[in-house]
Structure formats: structure tokens, C-alpha cells
């Protein structure tokens, strides 16, 4: 399955596709959630929400 397909599926709200994207971008989110050398759990959650919002809002 290509990335585009996964993204389109995630856009329609298919849970496995959303989870696949979350897994794929986890390193990026974890990296973003590190503040002052410490992993911030709350920020990580916020960034997960940001990813889900991005999936919804992204147009191509």
C-alpha cells in the first residue's frame, strides 16, 4: 500500500490507517516532545493530536 493510499484511508477515519501513520511519524513526534533534554509526555500527547488534525486538514 502506497503512502498516498494510507493517507486517503486515514482521512476517511479508518483507524488502522491512522495508527499506521502514527507509528510511521512516531520518531518525529518523540523528537518534538523533548524539551530541555527531557521527554514531555503531555507535549507528546498534544503532538499526536496535532498529527491527527494534520491528517484531516492536509490537502494535496
Amino acid at each position: 500500500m502506497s503512502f498516498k493510499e494510507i493517507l486517503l484511508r486515514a482521512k476517511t477515519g479508518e483507524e488502522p490507517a491512522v495508527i499506521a501513520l502514527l507509528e510511521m511519524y512516531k520518531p518525529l513526534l518523540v523528537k518534538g516532545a523533548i524539551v530541555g533534554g527531557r521527554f514531555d509526555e503531555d507535549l507528546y500527547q498534544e503532538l499526536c493530536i496535532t498529527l491527527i488534525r494534520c491528517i484531516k486538514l492536509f490537502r494535496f
Partner: protein
Amino acid sequence: MWQKNNGKSESEIVQNLFTAYLTTAVRRRRNDYIQQAARLQQKEDVTDSLPYNQEQGTEEDMFRGLPLPMQLEDSTLLYALKGINGRERHVFLARVLDERSFESLAEEMGLGYKGVATIYYRAIRKMKKKMKELRK
């Protein structure tokens, strides 16, 4: 499972676009979050650094935070305040508590100086009457 993205096929281009989009969103959310946390920290610091004064009871502080009707000890006054209408109450309280002038009130309410003065004195007259009523 994932191959190197050369940005050649359509799907790869979409992936690159999405990653860029997400990176920006994540960066902004992160900055917002850090700013928020800093602001919160500041507020916490302010209250923490305030010396706790034991001589002054906290009861009084709590009392001051209550809405006006609950601060009034004199129930006669409360009764009188309830007896006048909203506009009269506004003028009366602004004049007495906030020490506003008739001029500024007149400007705010779109009335003349005399109009506001009339409302004020009418309110006082009404309140006096109400209070007398209650004392009897």
C-alpha cells in the same frame, strides 16, 4: 517495509509534502506549548513568592472576592438595592463605588448630565423609601 523516498513517484511527493506540513505543525504546537508552560510557571512563581501573612486572616481575602450582594452585611441595603431597576442600580453603584462622575456616566449611557443625575437621585429616593419600609 519502507523504502528510501526519492521524491519521484506521486505517492512519494505526497509523502514529502505531508511530512513538511506535519513538521511545521509540530514545531508550532511545540512552541505554543513551551510558551504556555512558561506563562504558567510565571504565574505560579508570583503566588509562591508572596509572603504568607498570618496576621491578616484569609477569611477577609475570601470575603473581598465575593460578588457584591454577598459582601453586604446589611440586609436592609441589599433589600433596597433589589428594589431599584437595573439602570438605576448601575448608575448608583458606579457613582458610589467607582466614584464616577455624572459626565462620564452620561457619555457611557448616551444620556445627558441631567438624565443621569435624575436617575441617581430617583434611585436614592427609592432606596430610602424601601429602607424606611423595612425598619417599620
